[in-house]
């Protein structure tokens, strides 16, 4: 099998699921619920607020830094515990971590995303949440983001990585 270096489609090889077996829709429900939880947290913590993002980039509030910082610490601790106790998934599979390869895109793409984050006050997750709260014009932001993703896919061969 070819080595899969594209981690976002890694499920192709580390997913234990037999590709022939089609999941019942209930399998996907748990991810919907996880997303639901995440969406509620995002909105209640005001992470989806354009105003909070502006405050963050002007160093006018600690809030966003506190959110991201404590999220990272919690995540680090959880990963460490998972590795230490060899925690398995609900279906008994070992939990695998795929290393991310460095690419110049981390820098160039990162900067471009940063520009967009400051303008829209949102990263991809908040876009979905904002639409959910009824801010319908964000649908256009989301469609523009999809367009941006598509254009990247089209021209990536000519971009420095």
């Amino acid at each position, binding site marked *: 099998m070819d080595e899969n270096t594209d981690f976002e489609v890694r499920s192709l090889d580390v997913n234990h699921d037999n590709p022939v077996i089609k999941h019942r829709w209930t399998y996907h429900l748990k991810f919907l619920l996880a*997303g639901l939880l995440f969406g509620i947290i995002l909105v209640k913590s005001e992470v989806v607020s354009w105003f909070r993002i502006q405050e963050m980039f002007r160093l006018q509030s600690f809030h966003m830094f506190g959110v991201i910082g404590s999220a990272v610490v919690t995540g680090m601790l959880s990963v460490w515990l998972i590795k230490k106790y060899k925690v398995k998934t609900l279906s008994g599979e070992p939990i695998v971590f795929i290393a991310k390869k460095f690419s110049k895109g981390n820098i160039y793409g990162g900067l471009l*995303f940063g520009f967009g984050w400051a303008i829209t006050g949102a990263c991809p997750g908040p876009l979905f949440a904002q*639409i959910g709260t009824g801010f319908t014009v964000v649908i256009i932001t989301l469609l523009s983001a999809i*367009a941006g993703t598509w254009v990247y896919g089209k021209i990536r061969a000519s971009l420095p990585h």
Partner: protein
Amino acid sequence: MNSIDWLKQPWPWYIAGPLIGLMVPLLLIIGNKSFGISSSLRHICAACIPAKIPFFTYDWRKETWNLFFAAGILLGGCITALFLADPQPVQVNPKLVTELAQYGIHDHTGLLPVEIFNWSALFTLKGFFMTVAGGFLVGFGTRYAGGCTSGHSIMGLSTLQWPSLVATMSFMAGGFLVANFILPLILNG
């Protein structure tokens, strides 16, 4: 104050942050999934408009979990707005209030400034730029970087990946630059 009223208040960072951090082990434990959202935009492209582009030519159906996750976030937004909405407007830093007033932004009751982000504003140069160009940069940038704040800043840093640290610093640098030097020009114009 009953518990629902308490929940309706904005959640402080020391509650929200750890809860967000717990999404990392949650997704790993329920299905060995790597926390990240910008990839959903890629899967949407692969599902709807692959156009024979190699980057979108893969079995996106194996990543359906991510699309359900994104749909869940949208629903979470709905539920929060319907049942847990904060009756008070967002408490914005007074310095920002003053700055925004210069641009004609006075309404802080929404998640975004309604004076800029609304359907009719899309037909103005400013509104179009903020929504469409801004959105485009988010989509293009996250793909080029290989992740967003969830994938890189939270998941990537939790798993001690230095490319994610580089990405996160770039996100911040880009944001600081635009918010402080470019946005005032756009919003004033």
